[in-house]
């Protein structure tokens, strides 16, 4: 069975964690990746350009109504929630903050789970809050695959720990293990 998308939620310590995982993914990686990284509402997107320079895949900010396609890594824009529509395009929303966050990981994960069902991979990385736990639970309920960074190895353990205590997670791994697993999952496609 092929996977349709990978959604990643990450907060404090995220740029470093993403910087270890994303550049290792090969250019022909067959699964699109969508990321919510908690950021200052005034963040200007410079970090997206920096990430693009070190990745083989194309890293870009998700545009409203844009079609989700393989070969791309999409980042939620600062100060907007990012949602996935049934036709596998993006929606943006300035709706109230969820878990004190906009973009919220739960909002992305829950809407993506509705669309991709068991074709979805959900991944929670370092962060010092509880966002993403309910979203990951929803992915699991819809039959998707769930992965969490081992809290012992995370720069901030709180977000992974919350995710693990909220639902039964398929894989708990350090960054290196996550990187290898993602590459392997891509090769099956």
């Amino acid at each position: 069975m092929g996977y349709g998308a990978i959604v990643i939620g990450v907060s404090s310590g995220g740029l470093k964690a993403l910087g270890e995982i994303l550049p290792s993914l090969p250019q022909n990686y067959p699964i699109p990746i969508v990321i919510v990284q908690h950021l200052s509402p005034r963040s200007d997107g410079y970090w997206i350009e920096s990430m693009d320079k070190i990745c083989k895949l194309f890293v870009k900010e998700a545009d409203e109504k844009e079609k989700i396609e393989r070969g791309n890594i999409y980042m939620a824009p600062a100060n907007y929630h990012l949602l996935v529509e049934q036709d596998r395009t993006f929606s943006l929303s300035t709706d109230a903050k969820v878990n004190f966050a906009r973009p919220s990981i739960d909002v992305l994960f829950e809407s993506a789970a509705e669309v991709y069902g068991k074709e979805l991979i959900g991944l929670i990385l370092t962060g010092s809050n509880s966002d993403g736990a309910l979203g990951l639970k929803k992915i699991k309920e819809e039959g998707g695959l769930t992965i969490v960074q081992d809290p012992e190895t995370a720069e901030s353990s709180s977000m992974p720990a919350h995710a693990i205590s909220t639902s039964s997670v398929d894989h708990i791994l350090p960054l290196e293990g996550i990187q290898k697993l993602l590459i392997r999952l891509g090769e099956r496609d």
Partner: protein
Amino acid sequence: MAAKDSTEIEIDLLLEAIYQKYGYDFRQYSDAHIKRRIMNRMVLAGYNTVSEMQFQLLHNKSFANELLNDLSITVTEMFRDPGFYRSVREKIVPILKTYPFIKIWHAGCSTGEEVYSMAILLTEEGLMERTTIYATDFNQRALDEAKQGIFSNNLIKEYTSNYQVSGGRSSFSDYYTADENMAIIGQNLKKNIVWANHNLVTDSVFAEVHMILCRNVLIYFKRELQNKVHQMFYESLINGGVLCLGSKEGMYFSELKDVYQELDRKQKIFKKKY
């Protein structure tokens, strides 16, 4: 066509009922957004299915009001996206200065924070005296709140920072009177603002104007409805008039993108070609 799941059918029926009974048309709003808002209300109100809410919607006025309010996003702030207001000062004000009188339509103004921000900016640029701002929204509750011009004191710090970053020329405190809890917008800022109920989805062209602001409203619409509203904006603007969208809203998919010239790509400011 693949079979829809029950919840999606129920949501379609709920939106149909809202339209037929209350006249608000959410049928062409993006699905993921609408579903999230409806499911939130369902959980908050303690129902297990959307169908149970259908009964409440039709027979319980106060529940219907709650739900309608949920479907209208009222999140806003003074000088939201300060970079946008800086660009208004630098790129739009010189254009507005060439007109003897100025009409601005702020569509989807919600609780009015951005309308007052524009009134402050135009006052500082010496233009407010000859400007009329038509501020419209379909949400009457939000409009009533907007007219009051009252906001919570604990937002002042953030608003002051936004104002300064946006290139404000005075002190933000010049524009309101505050007590311990509340701040009230000065009366002279309100003079040339006309508040009106207008629904972008179901109503037609509003007036001929020099500038339209519609920020973070079209993101909730499906493409076809976006195009319809863009057509209405195009018809409302004078030649050379300016259209301002939200910072993540483009004209990428609009059939009208070629009839505008980009004044500021990043801030999504467009000028109607002659």
